[in-house]
């Protein structure tokens, strides 16, 4: 298809700026990046090669399928997996050339028997997923040494996650890190209607006066929450307006008043506040969650496309 319908545009210059900012803040720490869950919704296929070009040395994902996908995009880098079935035989780890993070002696032994090239050891922190106790850690390190398997502690392996993409599980990543993702669609239809007309399913919004309604082809089928209607904003040319009525599966509406932008004008749902666009963090605040969930739960339907970066 020629015209873009709905798109997640990945700003590779913003990603590069975030990598530079990370280097500055950490005084040149190695770049180990958490890219699980399709790089927090940003799209592995766009993000992984770009990060490899920006000097990433390791990619961390949750599961084996993700490790294979990353390996296909990054032949040189270390690939670490963090989540394995309790009876996983790690037969896949050789093919993916992946290093598993292990959380128990039993898990270590299964990985070692499969001949993995190395392991990351997860220490128990007293909360969250169980890890290796101090005693088990010592035992595993001795055993790894005896078997000749390189082992490193997870605490010696600092990983940067969502923040590198300008979102966070802990509040706003801006202004420290720039948003990398822009979710947008071209304005698909305009319609002049009178006052008091219901808009979208359930008529949860009614027009106050004669106005122009715009149809935007993004919906919860793309990962824009259904409850975002009448709550969050979308922008046209840097002017943001609250979504009018319920977000449907495939579309939402904007009430434009007497504005009349041309069909095809980009409408941005998630972007950068410096361009007058609503951000993932703003959406998250309105919906009672964090920005990382907003980008991560975008679906595969809007295509991911890189913009900028090194040609």
């Amino acid at each position, binding site marked *: 298809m020629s*015209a873009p319908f709905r798109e997640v545009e990945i700003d590779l210059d913003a990603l590069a700026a975030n990598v530079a900012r990370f280097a500055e803040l950490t005084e040149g720490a190695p770049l180990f990046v958490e890219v699980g869950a399709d790089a927090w919704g940003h799209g592995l296929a766009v993000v992984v090669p770009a990060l490899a070009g920006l000097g990433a040395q390791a990619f961390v994902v949750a599961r084996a399928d993700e490790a294979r996908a990353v390996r296909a995009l990054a032949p040189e880098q270390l690939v670490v997996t963090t989540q394995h*079935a*309790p009876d996983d035989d790690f037969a896949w780890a050789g093919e993916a050339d992946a290093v598993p993070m292990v959380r128990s002696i039993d898990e270590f032994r299964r990985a070692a028997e499969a001949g993995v090239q190395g392991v990351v050891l997860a220490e128990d922190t007293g909360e969250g997923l169980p890890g290796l106790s101090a005693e088990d850690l010592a035992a595993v390190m001795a055993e790894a040494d005896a078997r000749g398997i390189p082992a490193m502690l997870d605490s010696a392996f600092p990983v940067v996650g969502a923040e590198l993409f300008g979102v966070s599980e802990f509040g706003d990543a801006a202004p420290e890190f720039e948003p990398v993702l822009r979710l947008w669609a071209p304005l698909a239809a305009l319609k002049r209607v009178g006052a008091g007309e219901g808009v979208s399913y359930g008529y949860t919004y009614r027009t106050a006066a004669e106005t122009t309604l715009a149809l935007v082809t993004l919906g919860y*089928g793309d990962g824009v929450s259904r409850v975002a209607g009448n709550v969050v904003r979308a922008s046209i040319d840097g002017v943001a307006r609250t979504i009018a009525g319920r977000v449907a599966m495939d*579309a939402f509406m904007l009430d434009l008043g007497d504005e009349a932008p041309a069909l095809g004008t980009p409408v941005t749902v998630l972007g950068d506040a410096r361009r007058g666009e609503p951000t993932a963090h703003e959406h998250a605040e309105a919906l009672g969650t964090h920005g990382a969930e907003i980008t*991560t739960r975008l679906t*595969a339907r809007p295509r991911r496309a890189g913009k900028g970066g090194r040609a």
Partner: protein
Amino acid sequence: MSAPLVEAVIDLAALDANLAHLQHAVAPAELMVVVKADAYGHGRVPVARQAVTSGIRSIGALDLDTALELRASGIGAEVSVLAWLYPPGQDFTEAIAAGIDLAVSSLGELQAIEDAARRLDGTAGFAAPRLHLKLDTGLHRNGATAAEWPALVAAAVAAEGAGLVRTHAVWSHIAEASDDEDTLALERLLAGVEVARGLGATVAVRHLAASSAGLRREDVRLDLVRMGGHCWGIPSFDGVTPADIGLTPVMTLRARLIGTRPGPDGTTLGFVSAGYGDGVPRNTAGTCTVAIRGAQHPVLAVERDHLVIALASAARVGEVAVLFGTGAEGEQTVRQWGDLSGTLGDEITTRIAARVPRRYVAAQ
């Protein structure tokens, strides 16, 4: 063979049974199965293929990418495939060549279809595309307004005269705001049909209703009812279970218990291998449950790759945890998950992430 860390099991036998039930319920109207948004997360190609095997002859695709993919996957000309939402500047050449039924909401869209048809006219195998003219009956999304309608119909009839298109259907979306509003939408659609026939258009098929109104109201079924949610066993109206309306949920989301840890006050926390990175909404924490060995355990927190649950009874690490499904293993249904987390079951299944493998259980 170890059970996967997370999987969405799609029961094609349940889909087959739902489709048989719904076809019977809406008869003599025809049932169109709507597979937009990857069949609400169930997988558009396997679902569409099963629908055809189950006797369905109309499939709703939403966009041309989906429609063309269905044709490429072997869904043949005996099955009509309808697309109705296009980006500005859409090129219809491929769609016409693939025999996709095309909805038309505006003169601009009609013009683009005519342009593509004119390019193909005279080439081998050219068949003028069938049009579903769309009227706005109150939802105010796409569809021609009543004021624009006669000009749109007249232009379509003229293009038909030139051999470029075939007028075929008149349709609309219904707002499902109230019975009165829906009745008004029906009246507007029927008036639009009269206008279209008066202007010389063929209106072989009239369609308006989707899952909810299509099952509840005989008068809005007309010639065809478009359904998504009900096909996958997700009731689209309040106060009923899937079984109450003769349906079985098609998707079951399964994960594993991957760890436990003593929690506060003698409780035990369980860690389950599915998180918001798999599409589980974070606001299922404090509202929904997960079933292990037939018992429900409350969701306490949703992290990217795992859930934290309060283990209400003994469970061994490695056991399968059912997030939602039919209820046969003691779990909640996706409709319940939707209700409890403030949305529709449709949104839950649609947003189950692409990283969750789908496993298809064949119909016998």
